[in-house]
């Protein structure tokens, strides 16, 4: 069978690419021209975001926490927020612009996204309250947890350990039950009314 050169599809027009190509990278590639300050961001955040995320990013109910959690990542209950966990500011801009507010995605202007991003930096104590974020100073913001990520190392760390011939007989003297799910009792009962419609 033939390979390539099918001549299928058509050339994408610049306007079409501009409409859909909205992604932003850590090096700032993809960022549109624009700006927004903390105070503008606060007003927008209270209007569009706080119903789920709280006035200061502390979250309402089960919705995601956006601020705080510093110093918790190596503890028993890590609180992974934009400030404590996210490696790049570009991800905040890109994600808010692409998918938020939840239920009204891509309804914010570029300047509004800059302002909300500035406010999210402020509630994470990463900028002062007079800070204005723009495409020009964007790359100056370094997130505190940027260096804490490393490439998947399972091939080096785990595969050799887990590629040994396993024990088949008399592998344990005694086997004790150490934890039981029934004690927790958090499983949905499997009655008809719980079925996903």
């Amino acid at each position, binding site marked *: *069978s033939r*390979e*390539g050169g099918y001549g*299928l*599809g*058509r*050339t*994408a027009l610049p306007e*079409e*690419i501009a409409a*859909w*190509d*909205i*992604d932003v*990278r*850590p090096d700032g590639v993809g960022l549109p021209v624009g700006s927004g300050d903390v105070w503008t961001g606060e007003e927008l955040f209270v209007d569009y975001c706080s119903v*789920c995320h709280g006035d200061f990013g502390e979250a309402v109910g*089960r919705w995601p926490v956006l601020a705080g959690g510093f110093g918790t990542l*190596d503890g028993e209950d*890590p609180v992974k927020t934009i400030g404590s*966990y996210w490696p*790049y500011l*570009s*991800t905040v801009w*890109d*994600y808010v612009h*692409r*998918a938020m507010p939840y*239920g009204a*995605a*891509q309804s914010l202007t570029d300047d509004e996204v800059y302002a909300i991003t500035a406010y999210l930096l402020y509630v994470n104590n990463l900028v002062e309250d007079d800070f204005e974020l723009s495409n020009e100073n964007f790359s100056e913001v370094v997130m505190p947890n940027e260096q*804490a*990520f*490393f490439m*998947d*190392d*399972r091939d080096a760390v*785990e*595969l050799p*350990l*887990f*590629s*040994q*011939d*396993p*024990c*088949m007989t008399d*592998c344990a*003297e005694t*086997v004790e*039950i*150490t*934890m*039981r*799910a029934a004690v927790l009792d*958090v*499983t*949905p009962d499997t009655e008809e009314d719980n*079925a*996903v419609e």
Partner: protein
Amino acid sequence: MSDDTNFSSSRRKFLGGAAVATGALATGKLVHAQAMPDPLITEMQPWQQYLGDGVDARPYGMPSQYEAHVVRRNVPWLTADSVSSVNFTPLHELDGIITPNGLCFERHHAGIAEIDPGMHRLMINGLVDNPLVFTMEDLMRFPRENRTYFLECAANTGMEWRGAQLNGCQFTHGMIHNVVYTGVPLRLLLEEAGVRTNAAWILPEGADASAMTRSIPLEKALDDCLVATHMNGERLRPEQGYPIRLVVPGWEGNMWVKWLRRIEVGDQPWHHREETSKYTDLLEHGEARRFTWVMDAKSVITNPSPQAPITHGPGPTVITGVAWSGRGTIPRVDVTLDGGANWHQARMSGPSLDKSMHRFYYEFNWDGSPLLLQSRAHDSTGYVQPTKEQLREIRGENSIYHNNGIQTWFVDENGQAENVEVG
């Protein structure tokens, strides 16, 4: 009709409860004595006498009414709402390796996008000689392939990191499905656009309101990724990305972008939300692995399990389950009845396909004493499925994703099964 149904099902329950088999295993043969003739044989049943539905009654067939309990289920407390959420495949009710389309687990970030295929487009842009737009008709004119792959959510079994929590393999292991895909090799679409020499990554993007994006190395994209139009012979279900989705064999489900509308070609990863905030694996010392794409070898016993107890009493008993690996096939699965003290090789049955689910069985005579059941998968690279404890020693308990540790079911003398941990 419904009266007959109620009558026959209550009758069946009565007989099932009343018919106590008296057997002897001494000779290796089970001998049943039937005290009275079975009325299900001696009495005429309605379905033997009256006419049923014609061939025009069920243009798209559904399972028997007696299988109404075989459904996807969700765990309401797992997520803030049901729109950015997950449900679970009823693994304990299935056999073989193919997941029926209507039971394939769902994971959405902005609900199910309902898209008219005539209004859907696929764009390829970025580091290409000729950015392209395809209609769905265009895609059907490319050469197609048929491949069977598992899709496992990276968070499958994630609720079990700190110990036994959910009682049932549907909930502990059900963020997985295994179907036959028909799709166009992504390589052909990228070649059509002409990938430039400095290209190293692609960014697939979904058309739903979450506009899902993930960075994928170009090497994988050109290797075995598909743009799928069909699953198990029919068009994709809406909840699985209709009209098209990305297939990324062996890799975490999040990357299998549904409602695929665009593929950007670039020279660096994008580090988007789903590969920074999410789908990164926090380790004990506070640092996190990123780009943990491959799903490691894993298995689970589906029967018996907490939702599927042993109801037949002692005697011949079938243990069955599924195993899979993102790195190849599963030539072998071991099963233990005593919590890992002694292991037996299970019987593999059915097709053994690369990066697909495999079915295993272990038949034995149950003497009625309690069991601690586990299964342990070996993949074609020589990797052996680790215990949860082995994983915790390396990763701690907060990595959320990629929990492929060995699962234990405690079966009591009544045949009831429970999710437990052993040490």
